């Protein structure tokens, strides 16, 4: 069984519909979602970017845990936001 969900990036500029296997875990489908949205996997120092998934369709917008199963955490047609850790500043100014 598969779920049809909408995935969006930080700003909503990138938005796709994807079909996710209900039996897979969130951790297993995250790479697919990141790839679907053409999001970068690493920063410019080569460090992996941590993308956290939120269920935007639920009022509390829970974080989707890596160990949760897609079929348990999501329902058909729900919206998933893919959010990185955004940092500004640090004293290395140019």
């Amino acid at each position, binding site marked *: 069984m598969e779920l049809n969900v909408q995935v969006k990036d930080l700003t909503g500029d990138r938005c796709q519909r994807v079909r996710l296997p209900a039996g897979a875990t969130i951790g297993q489908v995250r790479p697919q979602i990141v790839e679907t949205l*053409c999001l970068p996997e690493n920063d410019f120092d080569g460090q992996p970017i941590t993308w956290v998934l939120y269920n935007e369709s639920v009022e509390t917008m829970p974080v989707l845990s890596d160990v949760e199963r897609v079929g348990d955490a999501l329902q058909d047609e729900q919206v998933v936001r893919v959010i990185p850790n955004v*940092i*500004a500043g640090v004293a290395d100014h140019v």
Partner: protein
Amino acid sequence: MSEPSGQLSAVLTAADRRIRVAVPSDVFVTAAEQLRFDAFRAGLIDASEWPEVQARVTPSWLDKATPTESFAFVITLTGAGRPVRTLYHSGQLQRLKLYIEYSLGRMLTARADMTTLGEAPAVDVSTPANVALFWNGPAEGLHIPLGPLTPPTQAPTRAVQSGEPKLPGLRVSAEAGRQLGELAEDSQLRSVELGGCLIGCLPDINHVAVTRVARAPDVGGAFAHFEFDPRFWVVLPTDGSSFSGRVVGWVHTHVVEHGHGLALSRQDLQTAHLHFSAPWSITALACATPDHPEMHWFYWKDGALVRSDDRLTLARPSATRARENGR
């Protein structure tokens, strides 16, 4: 043929009327598949006002029954410049990855229609640009020379290029100006960096309007950096068809007293490249000084983040309040 059941990311306004779709080498299409374009509801315009239009691909494109290195076609919009939404059949969604790069121009006035022109030279699919663009309705005249139509992919450089002398017509609402002033002053008073998001609209490809500022919760501020609460982004509007607007950029502050002035840090550049690379995305920097906070604007041009020489001097909210109280 099954009913449309999926939607690709790109929401397109009328172009200089081209949408180039490149299909990667590991897929192929059959004649049974066609792209369908449906009306997209924008702003207050009712969906019923948007006639459904379709794009028909050329036979030469459809005849490609075997994988090829890459091929592309160009769809020319001859419509009224209204946003359309691409709809795909479930089979396509499963088997195809369509990377769309677009060239958007001014809005048109002709009747809604779409035709294909035929094959175009193959495009580089290694830098897909599947960004969405929304049209939010009319707004008055700001003009920002927007950058390339593909997101910049190069690593940030340490030097920001010098930009246009100014961004003519950059429109920042009074409310947004007040909010930016408060952000900068709070930053200066508390001696920490603060951040937020620019909310606005894209009247067309050449225009960006900032209507308000969504201030990020101050949970990660320090004197030299600001870490956005991830949940902050989740609650921001992402539907450009609503009154709430859409994200058109981001802002953070520098505390000048710390020696962090008008320049973006390497981290700032990286954040802009990785997360705010849409051609219209604005990176705003509010420099908090004891006198007057100043805004500096960075925008995309030819793949590089460019600083406008425009500086917006903001009123100090506390001074304004003091004047008002003294009356």
